């Protein structure tokens, strides 16, 4: 996936001279995950910028650059370091378009490696998506595969809206087919979910790092004679409810899976909406599989914190038991 993201950045830098990258350690080092590797060399320091160590002004400066006509793509090094920039994101990036009655665009992408499962120290494994989904004015996207990472990042950069682009860091090293010649304009539309695996018993909604885990669960379930339909949400704001509702109307059951803690989360939103829209067809309540209501634990305990195949199958069981 790292290579796919790198290729997407390269393509975007090539396509539009207004695209700039900014972040900590992204130029000379090429990013701690090497997502920007080689880009400073090829596009120069003016377009691939090593910033001082200050997230708030990485985003704040991006706002000014956007106002001057640029399209900044900012990297926040890890999920846990996005909070110093929270004010600029929520108060300025998300709101400036509406505050100026549409006269100022905020074509800013904030790339955020997120999620756990890589054995990192604290603050390096968080899933802050709900904070952004709750915030009007932001789009939130999370690719789950290299192919989607390649397409979706380019779409995010091309969008005139600000996008929080969540990169599932435990999938950074995943390999997969990427069609580098895909026509971005005709690829799966931004904001659309995708039914990644069809099934008839229970719908599983997930995104980012959990897609692979959910597909594994579906494999195991299939062996046990249960047919799971796996929906990759891809976009978290907006959420593609039409696709999800259509799936749930077929299966009558839904399990939502994410790593983030559950209270007032994306899973809560999905459960609330589906419970309403599919009220007459649900044969079981929406079951949520999420991180616990604790700060992310020390990494030797993360396997217990993170939803895994077993917990997903347990939720499927509970759903089927209704």
């Amino acid at each position, binding site marked *: 996936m790292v290579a796919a993201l790198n290729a997407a950045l390269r393509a975007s830098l090539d396509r539009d001279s207004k695209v700039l990258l900014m972040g900590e350690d992204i130029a000379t080092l090429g990013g701690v995950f090497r997502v920007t590797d080689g880009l400073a060399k090829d596009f120069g320091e003016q377009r691939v910028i090593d910033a*001082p160590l200050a997230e*708030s002004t990485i985003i704040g400066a991006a706002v000014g650059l956007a106002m001057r006509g640029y399209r900044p793509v900012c990297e926040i090094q890890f999920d846990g370091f996005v909070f110093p920039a929270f004010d600029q994101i929520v108060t300025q990036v998300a709101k400036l378009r*509406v505050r*100026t009655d*549409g006269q100022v665009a905020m074509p800013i992408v904030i790339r955020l490696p997120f999620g756990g499962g890589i054995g990192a120290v604290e603050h390096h494994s968080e899933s802050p998506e709900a904070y952004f989904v709750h915030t009007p004015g932001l789009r939130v996207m999370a690719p789950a595969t290299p192919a989607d990472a390649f397409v979706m990042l380019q779409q995010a950069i091309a969008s005139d809206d600000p996008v929080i682009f969540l990169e599932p860091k435990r999938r950074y090293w995943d390999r997969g087919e990427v069609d580098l010649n895909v026509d971005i304009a005709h690829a799966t539309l931004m*904001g659309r979910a995708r039914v990644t695996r069809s099934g008839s018993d229970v719908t599983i909604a997930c995104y980012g790092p959990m897609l692979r885990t959910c597909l594994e669960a579906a494999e195991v379930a299939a062996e046990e004679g249960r047919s799971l339909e796996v929906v990759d949400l891809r976009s978290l704001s907006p959420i593609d409810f039409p696709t999800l509702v259509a799936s749930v109307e077929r299966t009558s059951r839904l399990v939502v899976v994410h790593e983030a803690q559950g209270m007032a989360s994306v899973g809560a939103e999905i459960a609330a909406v589906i419970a309403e829209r599919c009220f007459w067809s649900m044969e079981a309540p929406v079951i949520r599989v999420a991180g616990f209501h604790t700060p992310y634990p020390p990494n030797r305990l993360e396997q217990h914190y993170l939803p895994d195949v077993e917990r997903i199958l347990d939720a499927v069981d509970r759903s089927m038991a209704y």
Partner: protein
Amino acid sequence: MHTHGGDDFVQLLTPEGERLDHPDYPLDVTGDEVRALYRDLVMMRRFDLEATALQRHGELGLFTPIVGQEAAQIGAGRAMRPGDFAYTSYREHGIAWCRGIEPLTLMGLFRGVTNGGWNPYEHNMAIYSIVIGDHVPHAVGYAMGIQRDGTDDVALAFFGDGATSQGDVHEAFVFAAAFHSPVLFFLQNNHFAISVPVETQSRHQLVKRADGYGIPGIRVDGNDVLASLAVTRAALQRIREGGGPMLIEAVTYRMGSHTTSDDPTRYRPHDALEHWATRDPLERVLRLMEREGWADGDFIAGLDAEANAMGATLRDGTRALTPPDPLTMFDHVYAEPHQQVTDDRAFLARYLQAAPSGDLT
């Protein structure tokens, strides 16, 4: 504590209306130029009065008075070129004036019919920024854009003494210094952040902050429009020539309340207004003009008439500012459609149709 009261600043016009020379900031001004500046000052003071009155009459929810700070702002504003870009807080009516934004346009925010009011690109001035400090990094980012465009424009960030404590303002200094960006930080030290005196933000002159970043700083008499003009001009020129960021601290005083909701009698030293009244920014220009014979009765009467006309336009115009259609609140949340907004908008549209008054609380 008097660290902030010291007169160690650039002054070109004394409170008594005497011209002073300054080796680094020479300024030749003609009678016409001074008259023009005086007109700006008078219009701003009148604007302030009128807007305050409009608030008292219930036509505005709130207003942020400028009285006392006219010279700092007009000097800086008149030093700018059209291609420069200003980021300000909510009290820079004088900058807006110099950027060609009609006084009436500013009323939209305070009347609650818009959160902005003008097209930033038409005037090269961002909409007012209310969250303290937030806009200062924006100016630096804009300046980084200027660098990439290769023009000699400058971005300006206007902020207050209170704002200097915010982390964002510091980070903006860091970025500007690191990238040597063409940005002018213009700090109006009006001695208060609401009720909190500047000494709580710093026991040390605020202009000294610049030293820590290797950014040149200049302290100017913010009640002296000529000094503010000359110093800002010189700074902008230096920045245009590639000199990198600069900081100006304009020492002034907020003669009014923080906003019309504020009650400064609770915290303002009782003799402060008297003291600062002797340093009034308008008075000294008038004295200079009298001294030089630049202002006759006609000029003053003409100004008065112009201010009256502006006041009338402001009053009538403000009363005529009506809230937009409620559905417009959904219009610019996103550039491209967002299902949640579409749904919420549809809900409100249906709802408004069912109960057209829409005001049932």
